[in-house]
């Protein structure tokens, strides 16, 4: 077929053989170039991939117990008590302190329950509405009962309950790791 084409183009039989060999060598070289080049580039990309992905590894910093105040602060039985806790966490190259609101209530057995104010839907801050006795998320209207269970709206589950413990009359809370 190639012979036919070459002859049609006005090239003699012998020359067409040389032409085909030349074209073969050139495209083979091109293949070689691109394959070796691509493999080399892939190897070179490795340190960059590690470098870029580092924060994913470093993010897993452990959280530790945070003091939320004396137990006497949380005696209200009618409403959850809003409390700001200071959370220290590693933010890239710096250590930051940020505040987060938690709602402290008691369960049926009287044990403390600390509800994270972070909505389980998309992370907005849920606020307590004392007139309707519900937690309402301002973003998409998710609604939660005083114990944190889901009532209505898009959130997929109840509000997160954070671990609590009592140390010498003070309530400590374990915030989720950053």
């Amino acid at each position: 077929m190639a012979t036919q084409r070459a002859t049609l183009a006005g090239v003699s039989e012998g020359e067409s053989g040389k032409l085909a060999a030349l074209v073969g060598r050139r495209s083979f070289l091109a293949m070689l170039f691109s394959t070796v080049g691509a493999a080399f580039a892939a190897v070179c990309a490795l340190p960059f991939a590690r470098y870029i992905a580092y924060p994913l590894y470093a993010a897993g910093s452990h959280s530790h117990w945070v003091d939320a105040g004396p137990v006497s602060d949380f005696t209200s039985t009618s409403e959850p008590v809003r409390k700001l806790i200071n959370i220290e966490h590693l933010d890239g190259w710096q250590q930051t302190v940020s505040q987060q609101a938690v709602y402290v209530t008691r369960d049926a057995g009287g044990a403390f329950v600390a509800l994270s104010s972070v909505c389980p839907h998309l992370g907005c801050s849920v606020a307590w509405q004392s007139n309707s006795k519900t937690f309402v998320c301002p973003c998409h209207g998710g609604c939660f009962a005083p114990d944190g269970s889901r009532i209505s709206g898009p959130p997929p589950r109840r509000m997160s309950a954070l671990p609590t413990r009592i140390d010498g009359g003070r309530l400590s809370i374990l915030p989720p790791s950053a």
Partner: protein
Amino acid sequence: MSRTEFQSNALTERSGARRLYDWIDQRTGIRSLLRHILDEPIPGGARWAYVFGSGLLCALFIQAITGVALALYYVPAAGTAHETVAYLTKQVWSGSFIRGVHAYGSHFIVLLLFAHVIQTFVYGAFKKRREILWLSGVCLFLLMLGMAFTGYLLPWDQRSYFATMVGTNVMAEAPVVGPLLKRLLRGGEDMGTLTLSRFYTLHILVLPGLILTLIALHVCLFRRAGPAGTPQDDLIKPQRPSQPFYPRQLLMDAGFALALVLGLVGVAHFLPITLGPATNPASTEYIPRPEWYFLPMFQWLKYWQGPRAVIGIVVIPSLVLLLFAGVPFLDRRYERRARKRLFSVVGFVLPLAVLALLGALSYRDDRLDPRVRLQLAHQKDEEARYMKQPFVPALEAYSFANPVPPSPEIVAGRGVFLAHHCNFCHGDDAAGTAAAPRLVGIGEQLSTEQLMGLIRRPNAKMTAGKMPVFVGRDDDLHAVVAYLQSLR
């Protein structure tokens, strides 16, 4: 099966890929573009002497990629620059390697620039209708030196701070516009956070933009004039049989690029890049030294003092630069062979030799002066010691989201720390400098009583390091100890 048949079968088998290629070609003309690039005729054939231009392109590409990677962690402000460079060098995976490739890459580029210029000069490839091509190259040369100068400051360690201090002060020596130029570049009278922003903007936006544009012009003009070939050949109508760029020259260029990459990787791996302690502007001992390619200029400035300085700092360098830019206008004869244009060659080699000599003299001066030699060795040790310390994240007291104010006593203690100039040696936020150690975390090592005792009555080692006796009120002492204890 004959070879030809085999070939044609292979073609029909790949017809899917071919059809896609045809489809793209009809819309972009990629085939003729590739042919235009790859089949460029080189008079006299491929040579290793022609690899420096594409080598430069390759090195610049590496700088661009590593530069983007560095920008991922770097924050250009006086309070954060050093911290973030320390973080990416000591903590981030491959960070030291990537920063090393970028920093050493600048040395490679300067070397390649010289090789490219010398090859072009020796081959007489700047002659006949190539004047603008040469001029665009001269501009690129200067812009690359600008990149080296602006990039040097960014780590904001002792070395880069003082080297840039000297570099910008040199600028102020220029008559009339000098002082204004210096203040504009620094963003004020002193070096500070605005200087960093300016250098960073120049380094990552302005200069790269200019360099990219000029490279496009340089390459277009080169293709228009055509490769010059060997010095024996005619520049306008080459007589020698030519050879297409692909595959031989491309193979040579690729081989050289590979050697470049391997060389850079090797240097960055076996000579890990270092970072000095954070800038301490109050240090009076520090001796700054520029990189080797600015060393000749640095040495040259030593010889010019007083009212004549303007001749040495402005007039003579400008003349040399003009001479360099004017090469194609001065050496205008048709003759390309180097041995037939001795006058021109001497005029070119002489300034280069003077530069090399000045560099060697500067190096010798530093070795002969025992005080300088000791201090330079000391600075090197400082840097090595700082590199061995693990990275400690700075405590940011005021989070951007929810500020948590520190106690009034700690705030007062910080005021005392600054009022008594503790930061001059111990650094801002007591992060430590070359002059005095880091105090962050000292509260975990020493008790309150020990801290108060040492501040009132420094021990022998502290006194030797020029730690003064604290003579303030007891309240202030309590406050500063509370401040130190708050640093974790």
